[in-house]
């Protein structure tokens, strides 16, 4: 009975305060991978300037389709500059800024049992490499590009024990020791420090993605939206990004 009452009350509350929500504040299309830092920035921004921030989280490409079709909202923040260029080509972006880097690193289990120091070590036949599927996740595609850039793909590919559809499976495999090395985003290793170690990839050998943020042309609150973008790119915003495992852009 109490459960029923709870459901009833919650239902009234759920549907009661619907209409007002999208009238004020800013609507932001945000890549799901940036949920943690952006949500914290949103809370802080709302607290400081009393402007409500509403996030819609999804994959960068899903968001792009929504923006292209719906043509409403204020800010777009995808996981890579590629998407903002696409949006820009369709005339959806007024201006954009870079916020942080999405840095690929080599992830190994705690203590680095195979002594991996460089990309070359992934080609050693005794190393159990796990890898993102180049066809289904961004890190897989990028990881393959990095290895190709270093002429290592052909040598590493036979070493790949398993391919994963998402970066989080790779992190899970590495932290449980099932896999001994993988290329993942640095930020996806946050919170697993006691189970994994990071082997950085030298900048010349690496391909580092940049995370942009853009103002949408059809925003009806351009001033507030621009202010929000400036806030995200400020040292406060970048500090929050850093705390969540991203390297801020300078």
């Amino acid at each position, binding site marked *: 009975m109490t459960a029923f009452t709870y459901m009833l009350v919650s239902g009234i509350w*759920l*549907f009661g305060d*619907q209409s007002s929500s999208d009238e004020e504040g800013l609507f932001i299309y945000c890549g*799901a*991978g940036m*949920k943690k830092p952006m949500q914290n920035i949103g809370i802080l921004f709302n607290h400081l300037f009393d402007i409500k921030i509403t996030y819609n*989280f999804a994959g960068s490409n899903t968001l792009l389709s929504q923006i292209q*079709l719906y043509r409403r909202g204020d800010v777009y923040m995808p996981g890579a500059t590629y998407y903002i260029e696409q949006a820009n080509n369709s005339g959806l972006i007024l201006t954009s800024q870079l916020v942080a880097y999405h840095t690929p690193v080599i992830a190994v289990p705690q203590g680095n049992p195979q002594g991996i120091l460089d990309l070359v070590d992934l080609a050693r036949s005794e190393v159990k490499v796990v890898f993102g599927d180049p066809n289904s996740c961004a890190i897989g595609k990028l990881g393959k590009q990095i290895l190709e850039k270093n002429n290592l793909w052909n040598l590493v590919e036979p070493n790949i024990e398993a391919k994963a559809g998402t970066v989080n499976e790779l992190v899970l495999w590495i932290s449980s020791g099932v896999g001994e090395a993988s290329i993942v985003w640095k930020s*996806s290793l946050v919170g697993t420090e006691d189970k994994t170690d990071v082997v950085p990839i030298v900048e010349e050998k690496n391909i580092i993605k940049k995370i942009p943020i853009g103002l949408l042309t059809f925003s009806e609150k351009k001033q507030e939206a621009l202010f929000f973008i400036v806030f995200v790119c400020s040292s406060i915003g970048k500090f929050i990004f850093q705390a969540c495992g991203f390297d801020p852009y300078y």
Partner: protein
Amino acid sequence: MTIKIEPNLDYNSKTLIQKIKRIKFNYLLLLFVVLTIIFILSTVGCIFAHLDLGALKESVRNREVLFAITLSIWTSTLSTFFCLMLAIPVAYSLVRVRFKGKTLVNTIVDLPMSLPPLVAGLGLLLLFGTTKFGDFLSFLGLEFVFSIWGIILAQFFVNLPLSIRILRATFMGIDPRYEHVAKTLGCSDLSSFLKVTIPMSGQGILASISLTWSRAIGEFGATLMLAGAIRLETETLPISIYLNMACGEIELAIAAAIILILISFISLYICERFTKFPNVY
């Protein structure tokens, strides 16, 4: 000509060989049941094996997760209700009313079932977000894009064919003679439908409710496209799972998944208890 009854066709035959044969067949059938159960349980079991109890405790106390649970139950219940309200008359007319082009109509009705939910969501976004029709509805205060009503609409659209299919099969199984008899006894078309057909199809309606509801509570693709993933606004349980996965919070994602599985299991079990084998008239 006389028909000779083969002794081994006698169903009640007591010979040992026949008994063994019948038992063998039953065991064979049960083997399929066991294989199915093993397949489902091992898939679900793997999710449970990754459960972190701390994360589950944290989840059930988390406001966002509680919101997602409430929202999921509410939206799937409402969308099931709306599905039923439309599916009953549509299914009934597809069975009883004769009209030209019925095959085509049946095909169109089934169409949303084959659409990837993401595409269904895209279509709905186009219809309700970019056309004059959508503008008119939003002028009336019915906003579907990035709102709770969008979740209900997405679930409704994706599940409607399922409801119709089940109810169509149910109505097909009811002999129209019962309605004729009711009418000869003075019932109008409507009252024979309400007083005879509906009560007789109770089990089918119940089955349709339970299937539609359980599919609605797990709906993800169309919801994401139309209603978005907005924290404390349109974040249902499946979307919460997706967002947690995208941020690498695998423990929280699994905790939310287990909550979803438990809710679905309990509701389906209750429904199954009340669903008897449909009566054959």
